[in-house]
């Protein structure tokens, strides 16, 4: 074992996922000497673009940009490092229908609605404005470090004060409605406002995407707010598929990190976080080396960080209990299809296939496909979100061929029959659903890759295969994310910080946890 005498590094960042990269780059920018350690051969974690079949590439887990934090884009000057969005046209969504009568949900989260009645369009316009108004109040909470209940700095108090003020500014009736709706389920809210089942199904699907919740589960509406606080170039609710897939975001972040002097070591696993007298002093690598640093930033799973790397012995029993009780059983699968040609979804023009395509025909359908997952079964009629990224970036597939990428709900991590036998059955169910909406698609499939939560867990070191690294529900949000006692990015182990999606505000390609963690490190002079 080798060990350098004087610490060469100010900061070691564990995990080169997008949040790890953001934290590393921000700290590098603040003149810290940063070493970033990534277990895989490539950076990016679940935001990589990978070849899943010879000649076919896809964004491995996350496939849409809709919440990359503007401060991340600006602070790290990502535009200069090659990150470009197609800003002339915001990517629309389409609620697919089996009978060839889709609903077009255009602009930034349904600015335009095509295919619905005028009355429905007007009702949606009102509800959409209301939802954005309320999401706007929550936005500051979802951007900053959660409020410190042990005593707040002036800045934090004033931020909370401003949020309180913005609630007051809503006006009496609106304020009452904001508070009334806060913990409602999305199905009840939709019942109050909308009638078109296609639109209701789409909204219900978006609300519960990535969560173990049905539209009728209490508090589900929060999931929709979480989505609506996302923005691209200042356009709230916008979404995009980047050229080069999600890997392009990672590449820009990696360049930004490199520019500020961050050193990266790939294919290197951190085996242990070294703790002396309650303080993290370095890491031990799988090579046997120990690397000392003043500050350790872990952008991997919070439970893995504390229980596996720090170890229960170095932690108070209450903390161990909390870390082990984080709910993180994923309920979504990811499908990649290598297709010999373009599929044709019913009722869509060729150009409309570029959109985000959603199969969620009604609120009831989403709820019914959730039900089996409560009992360890996948949905026989899954709901899903489909993109065909090869239409945006033709280099993702060989000429004439196409790539289809889909997030499929609901597929519980703990499948009763086990994923070994369950996986082919789920794939068959998905293909049957796809065939209903795009007849003939089955015949185009050259290769299908289905990642169950078990696969996602193994491949991306995401316990439970949960892309939020912890279920994103009210009991695991804000000061309770990942748990009270580690909610402010600093942890009970001095000098150890959490920077991954398991920390506030949560997952999705936002970079917000990494950004906030880096700010906290700087604030605490780490």
């Amino acid at each position: 074992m080798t060990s350098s005498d004087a610490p060469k590094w100010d900061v070691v960042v564990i995990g080169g996922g997008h949040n790890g990269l953001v934290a590393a780059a921000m700290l590098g920018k603040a003149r810290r000497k940063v070493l970033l350690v990534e277990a895989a051969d490539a950076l990016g974690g679940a935001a990589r673009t990978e070849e899943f079949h010879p000649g076919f590439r896809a964004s491995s887990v996350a496939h849409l940009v809709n919440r990359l934090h503007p401060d991340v884009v600006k602070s790290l000057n990502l535009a200069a490092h090659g990150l470009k969005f197609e800003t002339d046209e915001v990517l629309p969504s389409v609620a697919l229908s089996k009978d060839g009568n889709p609903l077009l949900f255009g602009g930034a989260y349904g600015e335009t609605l095509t295919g619905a009645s005028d009355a429905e369009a007007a009702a949606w316009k009102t509800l959409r404005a209301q939802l954005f108004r309320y999401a706007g109040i929550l936005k500051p909470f979802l951007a900053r470090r959660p409020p410190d209940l042990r005593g707040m700095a002036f800045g934090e108090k004033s931020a909370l004060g401003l949020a309180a003020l913005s609630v007051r500014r809503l006006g009496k009736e609106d304020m009452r409605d904001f508070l009334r709706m806060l913990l409602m389920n999305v199905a009840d809210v939709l019942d109050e406002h909308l009638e078109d089942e296609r639109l209701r199904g789409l909204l219900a699907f978006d609300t519960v995407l990535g969560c173990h919740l049905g539209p009728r589960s209490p508090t589900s509406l929060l999931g929709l707010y979480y989505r609506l606080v996302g923005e691209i170039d200042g356009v709230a609710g916008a979404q995009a598929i980047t050229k080069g897939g999600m890997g392009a975001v990672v590449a820009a972040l990696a360049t930004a990190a490199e520019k500020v002097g961050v050193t990266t070591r790939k294919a290197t696993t951190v085996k242990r976080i070294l703790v002396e007298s309650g303080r993290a002093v370095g890491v031990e690598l799988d090579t046997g080396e120990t690397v000392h640093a003043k500050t350790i930033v872990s952008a991997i799973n919070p439970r893995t960080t504390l229980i596996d790397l720090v170890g229960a012995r170095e932690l108070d029993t209450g903390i161990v209990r909390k870390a082990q009780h984080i709910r993180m059983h994923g309920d979504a699968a990811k499908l990649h299809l290598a297709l010999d040609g373009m599929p044709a979804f019913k009722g869509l023009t060729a150009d409309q296939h570029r959109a985000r395509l959603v199969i969620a025909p009604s609120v009831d359908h989403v709820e019914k496909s959730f039900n089996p997952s409560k009992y360890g079964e996948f949905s026989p009629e899954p709901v899903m979100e489909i993109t065909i990224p090869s239409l945006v970036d033709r280099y993702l597939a060989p000429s004439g061929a196409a790539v289809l990428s889909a997030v499929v709900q609901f597929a519980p991590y703990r499948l009763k029959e086990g994923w070994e036998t369950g996986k082919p059955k789920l794939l068959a169910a998905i293909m049957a659903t796809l065939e209903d909406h795009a007849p003939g698609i089955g015949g185009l499939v050259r290769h299908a890759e289905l990642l169950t939560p078990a696969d996602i867990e193994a491949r991306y070191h995401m316990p439970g295969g949960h892309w939020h690294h912890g279920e994103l529900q009210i009991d695991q949000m804000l000061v309770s994310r990942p748990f009270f006692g580690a909610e402010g990015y600093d942890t009970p182990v001095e000098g150890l910080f959490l920077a991954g999606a398991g920390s506030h505000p949560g997952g999705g390609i936002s970079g917000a946890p990494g950004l906030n963690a880096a700010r906290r490190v700087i604030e605490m002079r780490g």
Partner: protein
Amino acid sequence: MSPTAEKVTRGDQAHFRLYRLPSPFQPRLEALGRTEDWYNWAGYKAPNTLWDEELEYFAIRSQAAAFDISPMTKYRIEGRDAEALMNKVTLRDVSKLKPGRVQYTAWCDDEGHVLDDGTLFRLSADRFRLCSQERHLPWLLDSAAGMDVTVEEETEAVAGLALQGPTSYAVLASAGFAGVERLKIFDLAEFPFGDGTVTISRTGFTGDLGYELFAPAGQALALWDLLFQAGRLHGLRAIGYRALNRARTEAGLIVANADFITSEHAVRADRLRQPDEIGLGFMVDLDKGHFNGRRAIAEARRKGSLKHVLVGLEIEGNIPAEHAIVYHNRKKEVGLVSAAIWSPMAKRNIAIADLARPYGEKIVDDLWVEIYALRELQYQKLMKRAKIVPRPFIKLDRRTANPPGEF
């Protein structure tokens, strides 16, 4: 539905009919319990007094007294990481506790608030017995995450008997426990008894010469009979809690949920106490590696945020100041007396009190207690001067004398 003959329903079980569990020594206690003065000790039927509180106390100080400690919660902790677990849970450095030794110790939650105090017996390199006031199995099991260790509750399986007083050694010697004279204070050893063994330690809760004996519950009555036969000429008497409480107060020892509220039972946030606030700061070893509450205790010390202090008081007069309010300058309320007696040994009026800092820490003068003495249906309010004095209030050479006195 009617229950079938084979099927045993919950209602058929008899345990719930027992409001209080019997101790393994219950038949002997019942036979001696002339006062019928019982109380509930952690679910067990235990004697407050058996025949005469005053004389029971003097049995501790002048003869030998047997006090049933079977209701005490007992855990058996065994395995390669048993020492690591005890080091993580408790405040003292367990690596310094050699096999055959006993530590008086305490343990805390994450916030550094005391969960309980108790005694830790190191039976061998990888085997411990932890005795405490309350139940802690989930806490111990969760603390053992990632460790190679088993934790088993043995409260009901093991009988415990404290044998305290100047002739206690003589009783054991007469009972044939050869080698007990080699036990120094806080030593333990196993002695053959019946088909098995009895564990005897030179420990106790009286500040006197004394021993504690642990044996399988099935051996309890045989052990009792042996001791009482051997102790006939050494004045051995069975005693209840009231007498013990006097002795422990003289020894300056604290009792969980009497002198402080354990953190899992405290309902009010300001009743929680760190070790430094109940006189147990001496146990805390910040250099031994991580243990539960370490961070919080270190932080409270660094920030000086400790709010309370536990002190020994000597009060003028001879009226016990039990649960009296402590005043500064006769006016300002600064604390409460949690235990108080007129000490026959110290010939002083003594008390243990919880004070709000800086009283008891920086301000130690001009303290008073207000005693309400009920005299023939009329309260007489007495404002008595109190002086902070070191604990223990009495120190008996025979407690630690080697070899132990024969008497």
